[in-house]
C-alpha cells in the first residue's frame, strides 16, 4: 500500500466517521423502503436500517468503553430475527391471497 495514501489518512478513525456511515446506511434503508416495489425487498430495507442502528450502538459502545451497546445490538438482532419470521409469514399469506409481491397492489383500503 502506497505510503502517500496512508499518510493522507488519519492514524485513527474519528468516531464520527462510524456515525456518519451509520446515518448513510440508515438513509439508504429508508430509500430502499421508498423506492422498491417488491415487498420482500422493502422488508430487507428495514433490515438495513436496523443494521445501521446496530453500527451506531457498537460505535458508541466503543466510545463509552462499555459493553452495553453490544448487548443492545444483540437484542436488536433477536428482534430482527423475530420480525423476519413473522414478516415473512405475513408476506406468505399476502402472496397466497393476491399472488403478487408488488407492494402497490396491496392498497385496497384507502381514503
Amino acid at each position: 500500500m502506497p505510503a502517500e495514501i496512508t499518510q493522507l489518512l488519519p492514524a485513527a478513525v474519528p468516531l464520527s466517521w462510524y456515525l456518519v456511515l451509520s446515518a448513510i446506511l440508515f438513509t439508504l434503508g429508508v430509500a430502499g423502503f421508498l423506492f422498491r416495489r417488491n415487498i420482500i425487498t422493502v422488508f430487507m430495507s428495514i433490515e438495513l436500517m436496523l443494521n445501521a442502528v446496530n453500527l451506531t450502538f457498537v460505535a458508541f459502545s466503543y466510545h463509552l468503553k462499555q459493553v452495553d451497546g453490544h448487548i443492545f445490538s444483540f437484542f436488536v438482532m433477536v428482534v430482527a430475527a423475530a420480525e423476519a419470521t413473522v414478516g415473512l409469514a405475513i408476506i406468505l399469506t399476502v402472496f397466497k391471497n393476491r399472488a403478487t409481491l408488488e407492494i402497490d397492489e396491496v392498497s385496497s383500503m384507502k381514503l
Partner: protein
Amino acid sequence: MPTSFIPTAADLLRLSPDIVLTAGGALMMVIEPLTSAARKARMAVIAALLIAAAMALSVMAYSDPGTSFSGMLVVDGFSTFFRILVYGCGLLTVLMSVDYFKRERGSESGEYYVLIVFSLVGQSLMASANELVLIFIGLEVSSIAGYIMAGYLRDDKRNNESALKYFLLGSFATAFMLYGVAWVYGLTGSTNLDTVRRAILGGAMEQSGQMLFVATALMFVGFAFKISAAPFHVWAPDVYQGAPAPVAGFLAAGAKAAAFAMLVRVAASAFFPLTGRWEMLMWATALATMIVGNFAALRQSNIKRMLAYSSVAHAGYILVAVTAQSEVGIAAVMFYLASYALMTIGVFAVVTLVASKGERFVEIEDFAGLVQRQPMLAIALTIFLFSLIGIPLTGGFFAKFYVFKAALDSNLTWLTILGLLNSAVAAFYYLRVLVVMYMKPAAEGAGPVDPAGIGIKAAIVASAVGTLYLGVYPSAVLDFAGKAAQLVK
C-alpha cells in the same frame, strides 16, 4: 453490575403479573393442540383467568413499589395503572372475541388467546419498563403480536393487507425510534431512564444538546407512530378497517394506552429536562392530529374506518394533555386512556356484533334502524357514542374535561379552544351514526342482528357500565391517576 443473576423475591413479585402471563401463555400453547375443536372455548376461559390473575398480582405488586432487575423495571402507581388498564382491555377483548372467531372460522382458535396474553406482557412492559431497550423489546412483543392478530384471518384479503401495512410501517417507524435510542445511549452513556435523566442534568446537555434533541425527535417518530399522531397516523385507518373488529378494538384501546404510557414515562422522566423545548412541536402535533382525525372522519362511510380516524382524533386530545407537561396533564392522560379504552372497545364490540359473518355490515348505513332491531345494543352504542362526543355523565366527558383543564392549567388557551372546536366537529360524525341508528328505518333485508353470545354481551355491558361509572363517579380512578402522575420523585 450485580454479581448474581438470581432475582430477589421482590424482583419476582414486581414482575409476577408478566411471569404468570408468560408461563400461562406457554402452557396454553402446549395444551392448545391437545384440545378438541369443540372445547377450544376453554382457551378463552383460561386466558381470561390468566389476565384476571395478572390484574390481581399487579395490585399486589403495587403493595411493594420500587425498581427491580437492576433498575430495568419499575413498579409504581403509573405502571400499575397502565398494567391494570391494558389487562382490562385484554380481558374485554378476550370476551368479545369468543363468538367472533367461531363465527368467522367455524371454530375457536386457541392461538389467538395466546397472542393476546403475550401481547399483554409486551404492553405491560411498555408501561413498567424503566429502560429504553426494555421498552423497545416490550414494544416489539406487543407489536409483533399485534401484526399477527391483525392478519389473523389469513384467508381474508382485508386482514392480510392490514397485517402487512401494520407490519411494514410499524417496523419502519420502530427503526427510527431505535436509531434515536442509539443516539441517546451514545450521548448519555446509558439507556436507563433515571441515568439518562441524571446525565442530561449533569452535563450531557451542555456537550451535545442539539444532538440529544434530535435523538428525542427520532424516538418521537416511533412513539408518534404507535399513538397514531399526525402525520404518523397514516397506517391506522387502513389497519383498523382491515383487522378483525375485536382486534381493531384491542389495538385502538390497549396498544394505544401502552404506547402513551411509554411516551409519557420517557418524556416525563428521562427527558423531562428537555420537554420544555418540545412544547411547540407537541402543540403542533396535537393540533394536527385532532384536525386530521376529526376532519377526515367526516367523510367516512365505513364505521371501522370512521372509528379509526376518531381514534386518531382522540390521540390528539390526549396529546393536548401531554403538551401540558404537568402532573395534572399526566393524570388527565391516564384518565382519558381509561375511559377511551372502555368506550372504544364497547363500540368495536357492537360493531363486531352488527357486522355479521364476514364483516359484511360495516358501513354506517348498515346501522339503520338498529334501535328497533336490537334496542339494548342500540342503547349501549348510544352510550359509547355520547362518550366519544363527550356528553356529560359519560367517561368521555370527564376525560375531555380533565384534558382541557390540564391544558388551561398550563396556559394552552388556544390549543384548548381549538381542541374544543374540534370536538364540536367530531360530534358531527358521531351524530351521523346516531341519526342512522335512531332516525332511519332499517334497510330492506337487514334482518335481526345475530344473537349475542355471553362473552360479547359481558364485554358490552362491562364497557357501558364502566363508561357510565367514569362519567358519574370519576373520583376513584382520577384520584389514583393523580397520585400516580408523579413519575419522578
